[in-house]
């Protein structure tokens, strides 16, 4: 256990650094393919944080579904559409200034709320990772209805995407 006490902050700040660096990279880069690559960094960093938060299965799902599926789709889309004359979409200076101000104000407000509340009162952190069995039992018992609705949704999405992307006759 004493290994964890000095290792956990290091690992946390490492992954948090990766997440923030990539997210800032997404905002700043003008090249949309690089934005997609930075998103890979963010997703990977968040998956690492899930491991740290004792959510191993969720971390694996994040990597398989998000980084391995959704992001590949996005990269596909980016690459197929990047040959248009408007690949570099530079926002005007005033737009950037306004957006940055709003973002900073929002972050300041959120940070004030987060730091203003004494969260530790209710804290009794789980120190064992949630097992696949636990998650599966919960998913197929208490959350069975959302689970089934989600599967129907996926079917609808599959048909819808195939319909939208079909060749026009």
């Amino acid at each position, binding site marked *: 256990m004493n290994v964890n006490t000095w290792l*956990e902050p290091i690992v946390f700040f490492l992954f948090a650094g990766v997440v923030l660096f990539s997210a800032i990279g997404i905002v700043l880069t003008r090249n949309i393919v690089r934005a997609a690559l930075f998103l890979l960094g963010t997703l990977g960093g968040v998956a690492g944080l899930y491991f740290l938060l004792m959510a191993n*299965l969720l971390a694996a799902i994040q990597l398989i579904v998000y980084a391995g599926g959704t992001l590949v789709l996005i990269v596909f889309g980016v690459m197929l559409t990047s040959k248009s004359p408007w690949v570099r979409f530079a926002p005007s200076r005033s737009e950037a200034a306004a957006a940055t101000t709003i973002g900073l104000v929002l972050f300041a407000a959120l940070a004030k709320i987060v730091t203003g509340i004494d969260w530790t009162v209710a804290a009794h952190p789980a120190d064992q990772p949630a097992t696949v069995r636990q998650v599966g039992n919960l998913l197929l018992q208490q959350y069975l209805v*959302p689970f089934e609705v989600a599967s129907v949704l996926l079917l609808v999405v599959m048909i819808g995407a195939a319909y939208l992307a079909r060749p026009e006759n």
Partner: protein
Amino acid sequence: MTSIGLQHYLLLAAALFCLGILTMTLKRNAIGILIGVELILNAANLNLVAFTRYRTGAIDGQIVAVFIILLAAAEAAIAIAIFMNFYNSLATIDVDRADQLQG
């Protein structure tokens, strides 16, 4: 060294959320906006999992996070299909050019 608590994760998620909002406002590329949405969803997921670990001790938050990941995948599939059609008809995915319905 300080020990890592709930606040660290919440602050990180807040920063991620704001960066997602910034991405959505600053990108005119439709896929750029989609990337911003993904950042926001990740921030929400991070909050859920952090609360799950530090507050409740149960794992319900992880289940909700699984559903969010699933919805994000579904959303991206449909969005990219729409963007492809958009690109095929307008030869760009600059959202500001999708103004044909304006009178």
